[in-house]
């Protein structure tokens, strides 16, 4: 290919720099390493160009000289029969290889001696009269200058070819550099994006887009294994014009995931048609790189790079890039999973704690879970942002935690409470708040526990706060708590029907309850709410599913 590039690099300017030489009496021609002439023939020198065109023997002679120059040395020879007419071949070198040659012909003033010229024309089989005339029209070289000119020409050819080929090198280098910049930019972006907390699917969708846009990979697919207990269907995210379906991609993933890979971090396949196992892809798979997404013993899925932009094989550049991204992504996925695990653990522990307290009184079993659910429901009706609603749930869950400090005899008494007993029960919000004081990351939940027995008219406990002093959490949980209390059996009375509960809430809106929140609740279909709450009752201890109530188990109250 180098010779081809030599031609490409040299030809555009050839006519320009050949012209002055022509005036000095030198005819120039360019030859590649196969001794083919490559410069465009144009009438620059009437004598030599015509000689070349009309004399086959002359062409052969020149070609022969060009071939000899391929050996690497300058060739100087006399043209048969004509004294003082020489042909010179200058090899053109690039990086220690002869890639072509320049062949020059020149005659001096005294070459038009009758005798020798006649012989010359007969050797090369051209008309003597015509060529004699042509010879007088063209420039001739001065004998004394000839050697100097030849040396100069040699130097010029070398420097011009070096310049031309260096330009080509710079071009290649720049193209490669641009590609490297692109990949670097990609790695920076990917690294930065992964510190922002977003769902895995969103992250991987963006990653696939970046990869297909910024590298030679035509299509990228990320396959994520389903989390434990969530079925067997992997999630497939992809980008690029590929016609394969998600299930095709999932199947491909499953096929390559289990192949033995020894120490290689990636699986590379550049000619799938040679491997029977991949025949099922029937043509849409041309090149493949597969990198696993995994950390220690846990496998999260994999990244598939499918098909090269220019139908070339995937090389170590792409493999390394994909590996680096897979590593980074694996760490990210692991973080997300760990965070999820921790969150589940936290919620699970809270449920266990709360259930153990509620279980002291069989009638309040499940109460905290129900209040939690209803508090969150009310919060969403009140346009509380989603992340805060989850905190409302937790506050509702923990609202009666203080009851652990109340004696069982008081909690389970079936009759009316004495004043002293009542005072004791009234401690539980403050006890609950005290228990949670000092526990990290639950400070924002405390107002819900402390204020859930306050009344908006200031007659509640423990602090007789008025509406503007009672936290939103307190008002939400308070309302949810009362509603659940009214609609479920207690040691001291049976559950009230929904209509009674509705009247009660209406009556107490503005005195016990926040009137706006009471309104929101009363606008709901309370039968529905009642049913949903009943489903939560008697739940086995299970982490909350944020999307709503869990499946039914056990009987209703």
């Amino acid at each position, binding site marked *: 290919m180098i010779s081809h590039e030599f031609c490409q690099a040299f030809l555009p300017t050839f006519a320009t720099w050949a012209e002055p030489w022509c005036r000095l009496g030198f005819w120039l021609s360019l030859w590649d390493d196969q001794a083919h002439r490559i410069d465009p023939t144009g009438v620059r020198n009437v004598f030599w160009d015509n000689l070349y065109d009309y004399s086959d023997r002359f062409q052969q002679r020149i070609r022969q000289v060009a071939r000899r120059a391929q050996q690497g040395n300058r060739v100087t020879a006399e043209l048969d029969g004509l004294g003082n007419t020489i042909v010179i071949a200058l090899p053109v070198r690039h990086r220690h290889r002869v890639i072509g040659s320049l062949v020059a012909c020149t005659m001096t003033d005294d070459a038009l001696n009758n005798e020798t010229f006649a012989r010359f024309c007969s050797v090369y089989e051209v008309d003597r009269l015509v060529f004699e005339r042509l010879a007088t029209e063209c420039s001739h070289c001065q004998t004394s200058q000839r050697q100097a000119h030849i040396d100069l020409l040699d130097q010029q050819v070398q420097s011009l070819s070096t310049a031309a080929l260096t330009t080509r090198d*710079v*071009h290649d*280098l*720049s193209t490669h*550099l*641009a590609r490297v*910049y*692109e990949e670097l*930019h990609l790695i920076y972006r990917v690294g930065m994006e992964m510190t922002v907390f977003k769902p895995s699917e969103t992250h991987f969708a963006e990653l696939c887009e970046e990869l297909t846009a*910024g590298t030679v990979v035509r299509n990228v697919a990320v396959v994520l294994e389903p989390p434990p207990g969530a079925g067997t269907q992997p999630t497939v995210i992809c980008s690029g014009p590929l016609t394969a379906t998600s299930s095709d991609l999932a199947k491909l993933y499953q096929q390559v995931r289990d192949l033995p890979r020894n120490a290689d971090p990636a699986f590379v396949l550049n000619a799938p048609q040679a491997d029977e196992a991949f025949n099922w892809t029937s043509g849409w798979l041309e090149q493949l790189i597969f990198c696993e997404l995994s950390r220690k013993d846990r496998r999260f899925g994999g990244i598939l790079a499918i098909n090269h932009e220019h139908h070339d094989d995937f090389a170590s550049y792409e493999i390394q890039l994909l590996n680096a991204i897979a590593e980074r992504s694996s760490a990210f996925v692991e973080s997300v999973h760990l965070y999820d695990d921790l969150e589940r653990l936290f919620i699970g522990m809270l449920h266990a704690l709360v259930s153990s307290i509620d279980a002291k009184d069989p009638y309040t079993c499940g109460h905290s879970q129900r209040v939690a659910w209803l508090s969150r429901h009310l919060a969403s009706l009140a346009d509380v942002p989603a992340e805060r609603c989850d905190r409302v749930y937790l506050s509702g869950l923990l609202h009666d935690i203080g009851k652990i400090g109340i004696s069982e005899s008081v909690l389970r008494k079936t009759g009316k409470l004495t004043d002293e007993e009542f005072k004791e029960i009234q401690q539980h919000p403050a006890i609950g708040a005290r228990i949670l004081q000092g526990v990290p990351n639950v400070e924002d939940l405390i107002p819900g526990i402390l204020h859930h027995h306050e009344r908006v008219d200031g007659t509640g406990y423990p602090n007789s706060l008025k509406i503007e002093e009672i936290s939103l959490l307190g008002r939400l949980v308070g309302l949810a708590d009362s509603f659940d209390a009214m609609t479920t059996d207690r040691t001291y009375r049976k559950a009230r029907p929904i209509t009674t509960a509705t009247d009660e809430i209406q009556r107490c809106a503005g005195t016990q309850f926040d009137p706006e929140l009471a309104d929101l609740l009363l606008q709901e279909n309370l039968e529905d709410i009642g049913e949903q709450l009943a489903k939560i009752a008697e739940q086995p201890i299970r982490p909350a599913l944020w999307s709503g109530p869990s499946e039914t188990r056990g009987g209703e109250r």
Partner: protein
Amino acid sequence: MEQKTILIADDETHILNVLSIKLQNAGFRIIAVEDGADAYEQARVTRPDLIITDYQMPLLSGLELCSKLQCDPVTRDIPAIILTARGFSISESDRQSRNIREVMTKPFSPREILDRVHHLLAESDVREETAVGAHESD
């Protein structure tokens, strides 16, 4: 559509090469210079459709170049992109007062530069069309 010309100024020649090749391959005519002073000369003479300039250059910085271009009626409307290797960004007021449309940091994504170039040139085209429309009576 006629071929658009882009003037690129950067004292780092590898940047000149990378950008020239990327943009030439996309069909633009490129004038590449190594300093802000040369860029100003060339801008006045050739009136490019867009200028991409480095920030730090020996004789005339990218910011000063844009100021000069802004003051000269011949070059006032040429949009400019500044490529900077500086650690901190160019202030909003600096940008506004000099018709600097984009500031991008090095190392850059050549693909992104091409995107922005297309975007800015499309904007300029629209502006020209509306201007021509308004002056149709002339």
